[in-house]
């Protein structure tokens, strides 16, 4: 079977036995995810790149201890998260990236978010306004709440895997996320009133 057809966990088992081509395949698969994830925390492209590299070095050095019954992605995100949090502490820059910055990255040259392209003009306008309101509301959330949003909706992890990244249970993650989303509803309403 070719490397690209093997599961992440099989590749980790191979890496644990010293086959470095398995690491190369894992880097190919996850380098964008890990880099983007680090960027969420660090705001700085170069530092995010360094931490992403460091994450894969950790994968290599810990490969002998990896439990192949675990899922690889939450495990590797957990490593990346710890590295980023340590880096933030090291630099005394404890605040996570605001979603304002994500939003500016997400805007087209016109400065507007381009989405719902299949809908009619009115729908596009309404959707854009709603999303802009949502972004404003997100920026007022605390770091922990934003981290949950990033993991769940930006990295598309289910609650069970989020729990593996940040610790706790999937039930606890859903409860927290529910609380965050309901708080967002209030914040959303405030932002709407401000407009």
């Amino acid at each position: 079977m070719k490397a690209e057809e093997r599961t992440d966990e099989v590749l980790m088992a191979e890496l644990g036995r010293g086959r470095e081509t398995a690491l190369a395949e894992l880097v190919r698969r996850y380098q964008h995810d890990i880099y983007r994830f680090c960027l969420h925390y660090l705001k700085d492209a170069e530092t995010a790149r360094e931490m992403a590299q460091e994450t894969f070095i950790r994968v290599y050095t810990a490969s002998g201890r990896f439990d192949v019954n675990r899922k690889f992605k939450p495990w590797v995100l957990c490593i990346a998260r710890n590295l980023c949090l340590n880096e933030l502490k090291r630099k005394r820059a404890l605040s996570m990236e605001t979603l304002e910055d994500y939003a500016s990255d997400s805007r087209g040259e016109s400065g507007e978010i381009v989405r719902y392209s299949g809908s009619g003009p009115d729908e596009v306008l309404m959707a854009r306004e709603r999303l802009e309101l949502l972004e404003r509301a997100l920026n007022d959330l605390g770091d922990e709440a934003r981290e949950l949003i990033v993991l769940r909706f930006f990295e598309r992890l289910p609650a069970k895997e989020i729990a593996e990244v940040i610790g706790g249970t999937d039930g606890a993650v859903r409860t927290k996320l529910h609380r965050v989303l309901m708080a967002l509803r209030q914040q959303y309403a405030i932002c709407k009133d401000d407009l």
Partner: protein
Amino acid sequence: MNEPACEKYQNRLLGLIENAIDPAAEADLREHLEHCPDCAGDYRWLRAVCADLETLGDEWRRQAPPVDLLDDVMEMVARVKEVRPCPVPAAPVRRSIPWMRWSGFAGALAAALLLIWVAVFPTGGPSAPGPRAERENGRRRAMDMNRPARLAAKTPSRSSQIAMADLKKILDPMRTPPSHDTESAPETSPVMEEAKTPSLHELLELRKQAIDSPDARTRLSLWATLANATARELAKDAGIPIEAKVGLAGLLPADEAESVLLAAIESFPDDPYLRKELAEMYSAQPGSEAKALAQWQELSRLDPDNAYASFKMASNMFTQGDVDAARLAIEHARALERLDAYTRNAAKYYERALEAAGTESGAAAAAAALSAGTGEYAQLVELGNELLQTGRNIEQQGDNDLALFIYDAVQNLGAMAVRNALFSAEWLAGLDIQSAAITVEGETPAAQTSPDTLAGLAQQMQDLVASYNELAAYYRTIDAFFSGDVTDALFLLFANLILQNGDLNVLQLLPRQ
């Protein structure tokens, strides 16, 4: 939220959106949503906001800049393979809270080496370039670096008046008391046999006798130490408060200590001391390195300015062969000013444990104060030992630069322990760590072939001798205090002041010897 009955349904709404609830619960929830407009409104909101957030996420994923890490990662892996050290043997199981059970590792080494270094340079250290006054100023500055910050402003002690032989006589019993088994019955006086737990007055009398009597020191040690069997019994007692059980954790088998500490963390999730104790416990268990590292990381999050966790993380990472990460952790630790082994917290929890074991309140405070720092001394010295052992392994593999980096970091660890010391035990640990690091560095081929390096190390060791002497003078001050007219009330005040402020702060209140 709507009606109290809605609570269970609210908690399932996200599960429904994720398709992560079982069919029976889903049917129940859908039926509720048909009849509860508030919950149905919340569900609609959650579905809409989840969809919008996923749209934002998609946009972010699409717009994120591309990256190609493959070549760099594989090149780094090749470098890591070159420098990856042999795993360091797992740390020996330790943890107890005995009175003055100083671990002998660095202490004995330092005491012996102090004599050697002094013998080599008997007239006040090696010659060094520069005017004498400048050398003296530098030496004074170095001495201040080896004094706890709270003492640094004071005039240097009359340390030079204390002979090396006296120093050894004073410090060695502090580190290595007569061994005893906490499970066995203590050798007791007739008074002690009548009382299962000592009174404040009995502790005071024994402390006074301990000035001249090794036997009294042993009995005091036994009195201040709960037997392991007692600790296990108390830990199982549901009526004992969790704080008291935390004080017992060091006396419990690992699995029972883990249960106690995890339960305490549930009650006090932000208490860094609890994380530290859990991490120390895991660190002592072979095969629990990953668990230990997670707890050190959590401690680092809870107490980001404290270098202790970063040094421990570095040691852990070296043990696991993660050299680059370990190096980063050391650099991080060295960038910090503060190092706290949480001796005050440990003493407070131990006081609660003694009370739970039936010791009267005043006696518990006194016993906790007199034994404060014992465990932390051992932990700090062990940390230095782990890192030095790693350095030796790396040196054997030929990476001398990395080994020297580690030895230097250990010296830094010792200096930080001294500067931040609130307790004499921490001060002594810092000095022992530094002397061990200087000794190891002095044995490297680089130092052996460089007279200048050897001279510099000898100078550092001379400075440590001065600081050891100052600490010895401090112990004499405490002994002098107890040889005076100390009442039970004054003893209790003394003990409480130590628990609140550390014994080095209390030293400031006593006339120096």
